[in-house]
């Protein structure tokens, strides 16, 4: 009798366990099906951490907005967005490693590129091998896109698209400006921009009287500026990051250096530069891939540039810059492509990205055969009355170039 009861009891327990197992399996099955996973390798610690954290803000904002709207629709069903992050500690080989791990172990559906041209190029080899569509949110150098890859896309146009329109505007609006002095931070992106500027200045008939590089971590520019001042350039073009450019600008004021045109890349694109430089930021010109002062009506989840800026401010209580906006638009582009393909099949989504022709809050988006965006006209802007005013492209122009930086 006892034995029979035991058998019945264990049979019951067994079937209950099976039922629970089956339920949880179906539940996890449902979870896996209703979620689209995006892999984002980022430098969240180490020297690139400030940029990595900004990029994460952009992805998070997009994921939040996409999920708030119900998710991404595929075949009449809504899928939630989930972003899988990994910290590659500002170490490029680790970015490659972690990209492979995300694809093979975390089973992500799609990938975002690693930060910067170097790391993005290195990691793209892995996503290409596994045929995972990847959008790089911070890679501009054309060398990243010359590998003949089919699954790799980028939201930054080549560096010369920043310098050429700026040079043309100055040639047109300030015909007296002839002598250009260029000072570049000896670092991948700032140096590349300075070299592009040298090329476009020469091509447009300017006389480049000074071209020098300064070392990373330079604490004093007085000797450089004294030398530059003795050449009396009419256009001073300096590249670097916020700290360098704040110091250069301060020391220019200290040394009473004035010029009709002063351009700084990439400082004035960041609100903390404008706040910190105060009055000395007035009439500085700059260019970047995107600026919150632009206005585009887009077909993406954010709708318009001003709406994106509003949502960003509400979430982070600060002004977005091109890094954060590029991360958000990368997500929004995946969303558009997946909905267009109406499938999660990687090849179909890849084709939808390759054939994309749309407008977003970031600007018009079309990718060239190499995967790099070729539709975007990066804005040239000037700080006027402590605000950035767009000078180019004409479609979204807000004001004219003002001469005189004191």
């Amino acid at each position, binding site marked *: 009798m006892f034995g029979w009861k035991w058998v019945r009891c264990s049979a019951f327990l067994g079937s209950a366990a099976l039922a629970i197992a089956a339920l949880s399996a179906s539940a996890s099955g449902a979870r896996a099906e209703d979620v689209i996973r995006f892999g984002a390798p980022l430098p969240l610690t180490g020297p690139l951490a400030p940029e990595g954290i900004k990029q994460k803000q952009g992805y998070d904002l997009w994921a939040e907005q996409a999920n708030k709207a119900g998710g991404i629709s595929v075949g009449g069903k809504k899928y939630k967005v989930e972003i899988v992050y990994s910290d590659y500690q500002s170490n490029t080989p680790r970015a490659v490693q972690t990209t492979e791990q995300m694809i093979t172990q975390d089973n992500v559906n799609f990938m975002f590129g690693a930060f910067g041209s170097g790391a993005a190029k290195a990691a793209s080899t892995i996503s290409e091998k596994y045929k995972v569509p990847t959008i790089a949110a911070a890679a501009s150098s054309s060398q990243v896109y010359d590998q003949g890859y089919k699954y790799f896309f980028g939201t930054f146009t080549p560096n010369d698209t920043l310098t050429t329109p700026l040079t043309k505007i100055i040639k047109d609006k300030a015909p007296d400006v002839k002598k250009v002095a260029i*000072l570049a931070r000896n670092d991948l992106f700032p140096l590349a921009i300075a070299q592009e500027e040298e090329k476009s200045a020469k091509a447009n008939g300017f006389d480049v009287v000074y071209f020098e590089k300064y070392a990373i971590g330079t604490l004093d520019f007085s000797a450089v500026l004294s030398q530059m001042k003795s050449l009396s350039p009419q256009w001073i073009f300096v590249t670097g990051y916020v700290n360098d450019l704040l110091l250069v600008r301060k020391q220019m004021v200290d*040394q009473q250096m004035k010029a009709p045109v002063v351009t700084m890349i990439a400082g004035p694109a960041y609100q903390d530069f404008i706040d910190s430089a105060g009055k000395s930021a007035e009439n500085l010109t700059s260019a970047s891939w995107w600026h919150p002062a632009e206005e585009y009506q887009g077909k993406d989840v954010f709708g318009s540039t001003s709406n994106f800026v509003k949502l960003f401010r509400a979430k982070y209580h600060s002004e977005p810059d091109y890094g954060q906006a590029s991360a958000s638009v990368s997500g929004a582009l995946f969303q558009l492509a997946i909905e267009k393909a109406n499938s999660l099949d990687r090849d179909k989504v890849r084709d939808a990205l390759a054939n994309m022709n749309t407008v977003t809050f970031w600007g018009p988006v079309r990718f060239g055969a190499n995967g790099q965006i070729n539709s975007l006209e990066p804005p040239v802007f000037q700080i006027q009355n402590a605000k950035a005013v767009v000078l180019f492209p004409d479609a979204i122009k807000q004001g004219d170039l003002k001469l005189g930086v004191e």
Partner: protein
Amino acid sequence: MWVAQVLVNALVLGCLYACISIGFSLVWGVLNVINLIHGSFIVLGSYLAFGLYQSMSISPWYALIVAAPLFFVFGYLLQLLLLNRVINAPVLVTLTLTFGLDLILNNAMIYFFKADYRKLTLNPPMGSLSLFGVVVPVDRLIATVAALALTGLLYLLLRRLRVGRAIVAVRLDRDAAVLMGVNVKSIHAIAFGLGAALAGCAGVLMALIYPISPLTSSTFLGKAFVVCVLGGLGSVSGALAGGLLLALVEGVGTTFLGPEYATTLSFILLIIFLIVRPQGLLGRKGFE
């Protein structure tokens, strides 16, 4: 004319470098501790000046009065409670401890103040003085005078005051100082406190000149290191001499070879000094 400008720039910059380095030199000279928190102390001093000016419009000159005792107490306690425990251990142990403390302080600053660059801009700005076409920014001039004053004060303190003589005595011969009744632990704490106070004051002055961010601490530390080796460890006037030499080499290097090579040149100079004159320009055993 611009050659005169380059020389004046170098003179002013040299004093700024001395200002950054005096505290570091004192601690290294007296305690034989390579104080890796020094850079973060400077940045913390800058944040103090920035915070006081932004929130209560307190001028950085008054911030100096707040910073000196505050940093002295901070440094004194740090030495008394932590560093004194390992002060007799090999130099690598104290180096590791200050490295760890620097990581904590620096990351705490990143957490509380964020890594964004800030700038203390005085309203109205102090502007620049112009004499025969040579321009000198007033804020740098004041920082130069302050650096000279701090150097002078420290020199007098070490030479004239009882506590100063005790610091020198500990530096010269620790065992003999103990036999003479000097409380070595307390003297160590006072010396470290003084080093921290000097770093805090340097930070307040640097806030007027440089953008402020926890990320700049390693740059300040690097300069202090080079200046101390060039000028000579444990010598107050050595910090000044080292600062001036470094600034002059950087200025001349920038002018004739280009800014790209200025840092390279200063490190080549450092290597030459380490080989040819490891005691530095004015390095001696004591503080005379």
